[in-house]
């Protein structure tokens, strides 16, 4: 079990402890189900942490004894070995993502959600598509801009005109339009 998995266990433990603590303030009937779920869940998280610690100690001991080295069997959370059928998938062929690329992708995602909330779909969608295609997919500025414009138009026509849904317009868009008297 890797360190990242242990960190996830700690997060889950914190979530369950908080939810059980909050449930304790409810009436007896209302807190029944959260207790039925939360208390065993806390127990399982603690058991998992204990297993991780025990596993880490064993691994340290094993490291002190000379072993076969590179042929050790894969553990959960690790990439499968080359002989494993799952490793021939396209994801395996491309390799694991680097932390930097993960952070970059997450930044786009969070910025997009923030943009959606503040400026709505009609502003956030073309910006995300154009910037991402230009910077990450290495398309030319013209191609990225054109794709963004066509896609936004398609989304607008499909959802707002054809299906008559009202998409989120953003909290700031209307104010900005008023402020600049567009």
């Amino acid at each position, binding site marked *: 079990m890797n360190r990242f998995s242990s960190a996830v266990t700690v997060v889950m433990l914190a979530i*369950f402890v908080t939810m059980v603590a909050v449930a304790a303030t409810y009436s007896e009937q209302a807190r029944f189900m959260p207790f039925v*779920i939360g208390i065993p869940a806390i127990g399982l998280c603690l058991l998992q942490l204990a297993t991780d610690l025990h596993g880490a100690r064993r691994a340290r001991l094993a490291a002190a004894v000379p*072993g076969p080295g590179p042929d050790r069997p894969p553990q959960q959370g690790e990439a499968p070995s080359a002989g494993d059928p*799952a490793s021939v998938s*396209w994801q395996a062929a491309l390799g694991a993502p680097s932390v930097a690329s993960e952070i970059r992708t997450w930044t786009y995602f969070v910025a997009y959600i923030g943009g959606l*909330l503040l400026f709505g779909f009609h502003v956030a969608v073309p910006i995300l598509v154009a910037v991402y295609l230009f910077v990450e997919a290495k398309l030319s500025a013209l191609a990225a801009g054109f794709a963004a414009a066509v896609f936004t138009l398609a989304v607008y026509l499909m959802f707002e005109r054809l299906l008559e*849904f009202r998409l989120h317009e953003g909290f700031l868009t209307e104010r900005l339009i008023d402020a600049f008297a567009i």
Partner: protein
Amino acid sequence: MLETIFGALFGLLSSPSIMGLMLVAVVCGLLVGVTPGIGGKLSIAMAIPFVFGMDMIAGAVFLITLHAVNGTSGQISSIMFGIPGDGDDAATTLDGYPLAKQGQAARALGASITASGVGGIIGAIVFALLIPVLKPIVLQFSPSEFFLIALLGICFIAFLASGPNIITGLIVGLWGLMLSTVGMDPMTGIVRYAGDALVLWDGVSLVTAVLAIFAVPEMLSLGARGTSIAAAPRSGDTLSYRQLVSGMLEVPRHWWLVIRTSAIGAVVGMIPGLGGSAAAWLCYGHAVQSSKTPERFGKGAIEGVIAPETASNAKEGGSLLPTLFFGVPGSSGMAILLGAFIMLGIQPGPTMMTNHLDVVWSLIWALVVGNLIAVTLLLVICRWVTVLTFVNGRILVPFILVFISLGCFLSEFQWQNLVILAPFSLLGYAFMRAGWPRAPFVIGLILGGTAEVALHQSLQLWGLWFFLRPVSLVLILMIVALLAYAIYRNIQTKTVLVEWTVDP
């Protein structure tokens, strides 16, 4: 009964709008299936905004068709380049790619596409045949059994998806159950965990949670990995229609193998958590074992292409059974599909057999008709569709992200769902990164509400003795046996690891 069965078929075929939707679903499903990185999960996630507000049957037929035909085109990259689109297609690579290298790519594709379609149809037939058998069993279930079914479903998926460590799967399942308690308590009316956030009074949006736990992490992972499979070695073979037809004819030539592997695939699909990979590998193994010339396998045996393809598509019919009648999705793709079904107003459970059998039959016919259209279409267009396997994953990321956010917003027309999407996606990504299974989460979330009501009802009806009802006892025994075996397997794995590290 016959009226319901054929009424559903007539309803499908006589409605130009539904047939049009099916055709769109087939085309989209095939194109998405052939594009590396976008599996069934993401295709359903992308389709959610389009089905919102649709008629229940039209929307469900669109989604099931889209999901069912995904796998039909997924094997193209396995055969042409030796790189499977997803785990389901990995077994096909073993003999499909050698065939392509021998200049028989079109023959392998013809056989795999036809086998896939036939498998999908037989899977739907197996599901249909099991309905009258299962009906009396499902209708006997009382509230206590439904509570225990929820627990069994979580344990089962946790066991199958977690590998040797079942605890992580159970934690994720309990997290789903815990999240289902958010909102108004069905017994007292007290609002739990929601505070003044009105959007949470009806509970966490299922579509948002499912998109966050499954679709967003997959998409972000695709973005982080990027690139295409353009660097993969190409067979250099051009697809001739003569070879394609000769490949198609291999399927009736091996009809007995096709029926056997379809049945195995459908049964594997019924077991939640096993998925298409298990079905494909199991049937590949079966084809090798039952062959008189097993030495041909791995070098370009056509049976090695037919068996896994039939099985991986036949499992779709089988996995509908636990999904629709128990609310326990057979796979993560089915989990997202189930979330979309609930959004459309389809409530899984025994009422599907009593009140909504027309919907069930419509879905079965959609599988049959969808597969027929998909096979016909793909056999014609497969030589051009292969180009899509070279699409750079990064180009698709912003478009998928937009569809996910649209689905999240439109599921309830609440901007707050977009706020919920971000932290839940982080958790989903963390589960994926840590190698924790995510499927138990959906079962917990979907069955949580039913399980809570069922538990309260059971306690009111029978007190704490509800555990002693015969069917309940059987379910409890299954849960205990499953956990005991998981612990035994965990200890065994650790012993092997220690023996291996200390005593080389």
